[in-house]
């Protein structure tokens, strides 16, 4: 699917699914955000992270246990 078509379909459909209204300016902002973030998000989702171990009891004040 072409990115532009994906954006044209996804944004109005996604907002409508949640009952969220957006005016023209807001739609333009959402479209710009989509164009900026969606390609790297698609790449992120495509990463196989099944081998990444969970960091239990995450403590961001310290290095991860090794």
């Amino acid at each position, binding site marked *: 699917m072409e990115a532009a078509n994906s954006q044209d379909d996804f944004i109005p459909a996604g907002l409508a699914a949640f009952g969220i209204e957006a005016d023209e300016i807001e739609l333009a902002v959402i479209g710009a955000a989509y164009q900026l973030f969606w390609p790297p998000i698609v790449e992120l989702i495509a990463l196989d992270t099944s081998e990444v171990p969970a960091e239990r009891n995450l403590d961001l*004040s310290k290095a991860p246990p090794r």
Partner: protein
Amino acid sequence: MSEALDLSLREQAAAIAAGEVDAAELLESTLARIEERNPALNAVVETFPERSREMLAAAPAGPLHGVPVVIKDEWPLPWRAQRFGAAEMLAEPAPAESGPYRALRDAGAVIVGVGNMHELGAGSTGNVSVYGPARNPWDTDRCPGGSSSGPAAAVAARLVAGSVGADGIGSIRYPAAYCGLTGLKPTFGRSAMDGHHMDAVSTTIVSGALCADAADSRLLDSALFGEELKAGDAGGLRIGVIAGEVSEDVDPAVREACEAAIEDLRRETGGTVREVEIPELAVATLATILIANSESLGGITPERLNDLDPELSPLARGLLKFRVLLPAIATVKSHQIRTVARHAVAALFDEVDVLACPTVPAVAPALEAPVVELPSGTMTADEANVRGGALANLTGIPAISVPVGSADGLPVALQLQAAWGRDELLLDAAEAIERANGRRWVEAIPPPARGAEPLEA
């Protein structure tokens, strides 16, 4: 009293403690200076002289006794709810004793005003705010940086000698860089955070100081940390320069100044420099954005999104609605990327003491159009800045922005990052850079503070 106003934070504290400066006179002079200089800067969005006088009257004999400071609009005060730079927040703001407020009060400091900030903390430039944009004292047509825009502009213009900001994705370091200040993003959890409207959910935001130099930062951050950040020895410092676009896709003048500062730091500490790779940096940056933007979603409902305050900027309204469309799988994977990034930097810190790169890739952009020209092309300042700012928030490590040069009359800054809990080392390293360059950049004073060019409101 103008001489006292222009003292450093530590000099003001020492002069008051020695009886050489009257704290009540200093407070009144500070309020007068804010009245005089602030209209052209919009750095301070509210003062409350009676509250400040009451705070001084009750101030204990702490390390900051009687010293005036500004606090970001992100922190509630007992007499004032935060507005988060916005017409509407996702959380319900309320007056409260936030952790930074208590830390300042208990250290004897006097809060003289609230600093402007980028709307909802969602920008690195400070050009969007319910109060109107704050302006950069080095050039009032330029961005002061965000989201701690007002706290930075207030210190740079010498309205006060120190201020308290917050850093969720670079929000202390970007304005420190744009305004020529020293700004430490503490290790996650080390500085006062309670009372923040996202304290219960945020895994990226920390409080921290914005000051002219590392010694002042050490003093003010000690209050926020609730412990003395002791000076140490950065001798033999092992410096790792981050390879890739964060160091290379940078304005040539910024790159040159940062490379010179790294060499200064190596020479001053008798240390070593090597290049290091962080292959995960690009995806880690995206992961940081996704995590930070998902952590406030609890306050969002479709009904609320359909009834947003019309005074909220169109940009904020659109981005709030965009957040709802972010897939859960992306957030889940972002947390896994966080784990990968934490292990990657932990391994690097076995080999180096600090990671170095430009804080931001270009000097402060124009308020009207905050874009930057980089070797790879033109992009928004936000898009460019987040490349270097996100890693510390994602992993929890401390980071500091240090002024190291000037380009087009605007400050240039180097960022150093260290392992968890080594905040003091970053201050030591910043002081080593100051010694190496003769304190040239921490003592540089913008036009409104040196009275060279009167500003027009």
